[in-house]
């Protein structure tokens, strides 16, 4: 028995490190491009999904444009691009948050692009009015709750989370998380700063535990009975329904509520892309973003993440049928998420939401 564990571990190490050369991963999307690459594309992405590597590979295979990519936190990419200035190799910037896309734009790191394809396919409120960035997939920040302890009508508004009924019942992830910041960005706009801050303070007063973990962690906390409501992006919940046994067991103890159905609609955010201000390969960059708006691009973009495609008629990722067939989402100028980001953070900080 004793020899078994280290041996097995060593085998896993070897198989993972050595790996078959075909599964080259981070850097070059394809180990052997099908043809002599006809171009180059540098992608700065704030997303990190293995499916994105597949996506780059497919784009390479179809266009012959070699994709090099850098995945990092949005803020790091932003700082790096500022440091790189006009020598930046970045062509395309991808971020899973509209507020962040706005920050790239505001920092002068993006340029407007004219693309009839994109204008045609992407709904107006999911793209920058100045054409700097285009949303490609959307996600909703909704309430997850314990149906054993909470009635659906107790969680049909974000404001419900601030209700005194939920004292010691709320789990949240850190306020530095971009999803929480963007939600606050919208609340500031909808409710005004003071009401938004009062909301945050009341939610903090309802915390069952200090903010911690990710969205999955909040769902698990509810399933384990530590609290009875939390905010999560819909796709974390969907992914858990297709996850490990333990995850499926947890997620089935919870339900999602899409808030504000009788008012402005559930908070929505996008994964989007824009062309870097000093893109050395601007044509390829536009071509890539347009390709992401094709059925194939949309599928590859969302199949693993369980985000919702933006382009009409695109195939829905598996598992989204667990969401309500029909829901109201907020129509809102997404650039405001970026404009309000600093204020949102300041409000959370003042409210003591770590």
């Amino acid at each position, binding site marked *: 028995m004793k020899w078994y564990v280290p041996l097995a571990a060593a085998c896993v190490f070897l198989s*993972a490190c050595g790996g078959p050369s075909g599964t080259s991963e981070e850097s070059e999307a394809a180990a052997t491009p099908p043809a002599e690459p006809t171009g180059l594309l540098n992608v700065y992405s704030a997303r990190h999904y293995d499916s994105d590597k597949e996506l780059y590979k497919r784009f390479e295979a179809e266009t012959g444009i070699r994709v090099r990519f850098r995945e990092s936190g949005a803020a790091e990419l932003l700082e790096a691009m500022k440091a790189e200035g006009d020598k930046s190799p970045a062509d395309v910037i991808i971020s899973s948050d509209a507020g962040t896309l706005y920050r790239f734009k505001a920092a002068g790191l993006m340029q407007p692009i004219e693309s009839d394809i994109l204008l045609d396919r992407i709904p107006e409120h999911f793209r920058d009015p100045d054409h700097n960035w285009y949303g490609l997939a959307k996600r909703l920040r909704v309430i997850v709750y314990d149906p054993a302890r909470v009635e659906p009508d107790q969680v049909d508004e974000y404001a419900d989370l601030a209700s005194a009924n939920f004292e010691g019942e709320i789990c949240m992830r850190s306020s530095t998380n971009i999803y929480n910041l963007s939600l606050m960005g919208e609340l500031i706009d909808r409710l005004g700063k003071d009401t938004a801050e009062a909301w945050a303070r009341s939610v903090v007063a309802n915390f069952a535990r200090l903010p911690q973990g990710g969205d999955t962690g909040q769902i698990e906390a509810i399933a384990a009975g530590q609290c009875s409501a939390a905010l999560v992006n819909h796709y974390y919940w969907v992914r858990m329904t297709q996850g490990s046994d333990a995850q499926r067991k947890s997620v089935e103890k919870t339900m999602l509520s899409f808030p504000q159905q009788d008012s402005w609609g559930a908070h929505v955010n996008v994964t989007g892309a824009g062309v870097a201000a000093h893109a050395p390969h601007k044509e390829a960059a536009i071509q890539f973003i347009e390709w992401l708006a094709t059925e194939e691009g949309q599928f590859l973009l969302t199949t693993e993440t369980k985000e919702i495609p933006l382009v009409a008629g695109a195939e829905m990722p598996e598992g989204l049928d667990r969401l309500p067939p029909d829901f109201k989402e907020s129509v809102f100028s997404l650039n405001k998420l970026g404009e309000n980001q600093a204020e949102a953070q300041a409000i959370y900080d003042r409210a003591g939401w770590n």
Partner: protein
Amino acid sequence: MNTYTAIRSFRFRSIDGPALLAGLIIAVPVVVTLLAGILNGGGEAWSHIRDTLLTGYTTGTLGTLALTALMTLAVAVPAAWLVTMYQFPGRGLFEWLLILPLAAPGYVLAYAYADLMGLMGPFQVAIREATGWTARDYWFPDMRSLPGLAFVLTCALYPYVYLTARAAFVSQSVCALEAARSLGASSARRFWQVALPAARPAIAAGLALTLMEAAADYGAAEYLGVPTLTFGIVRAWQSFGEPAAAARLALVLVVIVIALILTERHTRGRAGSQQSSTRWRNVSRTRLPRWAGLGAVAACALLFLATFVLPMSRLIWLVMESQGQIAPIGRALVNTLILAGSGAALAFVLAMVIALTARQSGLIAGFARLMASTGYAIPGAVLALGALLVMGYLGITLTGAGAIIALAWVYASRFTTSGAEPMVAALGRAPASMGYAAESLGASPLRRAVSVDLPVALSGAMAGALILFVESLKELPATLMLRPFNWDTLSVRANAYATDERLAAAALPSLLITLAGLLPVILLSWRLSHSRPGDTQ
């Protein structure tokens, strides 16, 4: 030093040029960051941070340091005393096993422990399944808390104190302990009033090292959600996009670190530490009676299990459970080797220069050494900020070679002092008279350094190089901020996967980092078991 010798030693000597250059290279990132912090005002973000977050960050850091210090002392000093003074089954094995936790960086233990002790970890799940309770029906220690962070950092860093305390106990005057016995002191009084005070400076030095590392931690604090100054620095830069505000926070952190160093200096005081002994006798270990011996075995085993075996087996289990479904990390491995390798190479050259000046007297050499020691207490994030600013002023883009240089620079700035240490130690083993002999034969300081000291220092070079490489490889925040286009390292991957709630994917790079970390630790324990007290000065 009187005026005459001061003036005399202010002569510029041949070795001073390289030394000064090395010191500058190391000190610039810190200095630039601090200057930016003082001069740039901090921006709008600073007034917000100052008003709402600074107190939390400062109490977070101070609380973590205080609790880590307490836990480390409570664990490391008794452990060192036990393995030095008593004989019990497995003592020799535990003596070096207890060093191993040094191999794993704090953030790796944070991933493992947050998972193990978390709501969905095996313990809590077992409790709920066995009792039918929900999470609110029972109390369970929360890793994602300040005590949790202190616990994880203690696990990762207590060996520093264990090592220095053990060395002090091993080299203490056995006669002093026997004299204390003859004066009627009980074993408890001998520990508290003779051995412990005599070892106090050594313990304080180890503790200072532990706390500097704890203050520099970013990964564990971030993952466990404890606001600390280092976390705040990275956040000020990332969320607020305000390097100036980050630099302001760096100022506060540096003040705390300086206070730590001064406290450590102060504990040395006037009182001597080690008696210069003319005769050495090995500590004669008291054989523990049966039950006490089993207790000692249990205590050591528990410590080793808790700080190393348990978290590492959890990570191994995560890797195995994922059955090859883990994201491959071959490329990250190559990147790590290249980045840590180039950082270690630069640091190695600097460490060599610094080690060679360690034997040189004089103001300039002393100043160079002072500058060289600055980076080592400073979090990587702060140094990265400085490097970023400098590269910006110089108009060098942080891509490709530029980024590698910047990152190597930060690694060198942070780790040169640790890498120079074994070389200085090697030099210390050679009699100083060798150098004097060379100088009396008319060798210039530079020639003396190259022809006499260098070959001696090289005997410590392998250990130095290994330490530099592994420390660079474990480094997280600076690597996160500076790594070039397309260059994820193991630590960056581990962090990205972990914060992305993909712990199984984070486990493999975490294990590899720990595996690499084991190399210098094993080398260290080998050196320990082959050196006798009295060998070193």
